[in-house]
């Protein structure tokens, strides 16, 4: 039995008398410890898909099953790393993570255990040094690190990353991708990442789910990336499997499902 099962999910939004179909018959099974990327052009509903798994957006038809149980509401077992970090600006870095830890582990850990767990997760993303800073005082990349720490600190069954590095410059992005790969290798989390960056998808994923253009977006293709881990970006530049995978995704996105700008 698969760990996470997205079973014939449809999603349409209703505005007045008009109904817009966003997702059409999405079926996907993800195993424990797998890293899956969802890629597609803007507006294809990939973020909607992630929000459905998170439980933040209600489903129109179908179901999402985590370990055989249907999920309907959001919860800390499906932690989300939001695109714009969504740290609470009035809390320090430490307090942002502690808010999650204190809520999720309220009855299970003692006060000092919770403190240690917050610091452990900040260490994991190399942000322990900035524990007393506020989000406004740290860079975009650092904010996203804290966002990842907050997600990991919930000990989720599955970590959902919604274009986590989209707003970062290329160098910071590469740095954070490496961090995510290390964390994934060390902890073996199941992760779903939404992205529109082909290299990022190929570098990080075990599988890439490619979405067709909306409305009524479907899963067009699923590509297995059979690359050894740990992966090093410099070695991969000339790796045949990497190049082939990259080409396959690019061809899907730019030949068969070119983005048609709505006039």
């Amino acid at each position, binding site marked *: 039995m698969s760990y996470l099962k997205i079973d014939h999910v449809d999603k349409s939004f209703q505005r007045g008398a008009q109904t817009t179909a966003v997702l059409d018959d999405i079926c996907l099974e993800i195993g424990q410890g797998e890293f899956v990327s969802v890629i597609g052009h803007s507006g294809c509903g990939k973020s909607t898909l992630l929000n459905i798994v998170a439980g933040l957006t209600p489903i129109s038809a179908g179901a999402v099953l985590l370990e055989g149980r249907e999920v309907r509401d*959001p919860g800390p077992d*499906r932690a*989300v790393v*939001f695109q714009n970090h969504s740290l609470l*600006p009035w809390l320090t870095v430490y307090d942002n993570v502690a808010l999650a830890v204190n809520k999720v582990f309220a009855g299970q850990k003692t006060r000092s255990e919770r403190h240690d767990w917050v610091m452990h997760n900040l260490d994991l993303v190399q942000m322990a040094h900035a524990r007393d800073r506020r989000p406004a005082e740290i860079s975009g990349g650092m904010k996203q690190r804290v966002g990842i720490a907050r997600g990991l600190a*919930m000990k989720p069954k599955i970590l959902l990353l919604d274009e986590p590095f989209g707003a970062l410059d290329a160098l910071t992005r590469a740095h954070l991708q490496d961090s995510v790969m290390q964390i994934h290798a060390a902890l073996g989390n199941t992760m779903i990442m939404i992205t529109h960056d082909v290299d990022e998808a190929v570098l990080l994923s075990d599988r890439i789910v490619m979405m067709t253009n909306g409305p009524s977006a479907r899963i067009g293709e699923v590509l297995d990336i059979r690359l050894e881990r740990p992966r090093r970006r410099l070695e991969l530049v000339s790796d045949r499997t990497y190049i082939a995978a990259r080409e396959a995704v690019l061809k899907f996105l730019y030949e068969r499902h070119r983005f048609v700008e709505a006039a």
Partner: protein
Amino acid sequence: MGHAALKDAPAGAAIVALPGAKPPGVVPLPPPAGRSRTRRLLPWLGTVLVNVLPPLVTVALIALFWQIAASGPQSSLPPPTKIWEEARDLIVEPFYWVGSQDIGLGWRILVSLQRVAIGFSLAAIVGVLLGSLVGQSVWAMRGLDPVFQVLRTVPPLAWLPLSLAAFRDSQPSAIFVIFITAIWPVIINTAVGIRNIPQDYRNVARVLRLNQLEFFVRIMVPSAAPYIFTGLRIGVGLSWLAIVAAEMLTGGVGIGFFIWDAWNSSRLSDIIVALIYIGIVGFALDRLVALVGSIVTRGTLTH
């Protein structure tokens, strides 16, 4: 020349040992000054002068103009010099106490401030709670907002007869007038602040499964704090406006009644002194709420 010297220097040589010209970009530090205290005080003194001098000049000019305008024999208002003669005790001794009705303006201000403090605190608490409800629930907004919009246009003093009838005492009536005056801006601004909480923060709360109370304390209030304090600041200003008017009618020892009393016994100089007191206290109240707001909301405004 400096560069050539750098090349010739042996590997271990310190840069300080460069002969001839100083290395570019290195500015020698001034020797530690003995008069550093004065140096640090001078700019501070400068800012004080820049901020204090212009209003002082303005006040002096107004006083001068007033003196000239009110000095004529038919003048109905007293000039500053006459005010000083007649109301000197009020100006120099705000906290004297002779009898129950012969007390310094400082005491009267304190009595009025106490009423404002009670009425305004109630308005702040009830206003934030009601505003949160209206901001959070669509149905509460549909039901309550039109009512609020109508009620908030009622002038403060129009509530006074009703409130006197209900409470049968001047003290709670005055407090109620303060309350009903200050609450509307608090409600309306809180509701706007709550409605403007970014969806991201709500999503964070949903993923964490924060309950209603946790959401209110952890997300809603801090996120809406800048709006709430805008409402509180408007509210405290309106309270101070209303208390003077309310006290004129209810009597007692407040600053408002003092003005009314002075008018009835034609002590115009006393009225003018009281006006200045009221203005300064109102200004201080406004700044106080703004200061508390800027301390509480630090970090909230910037993203």
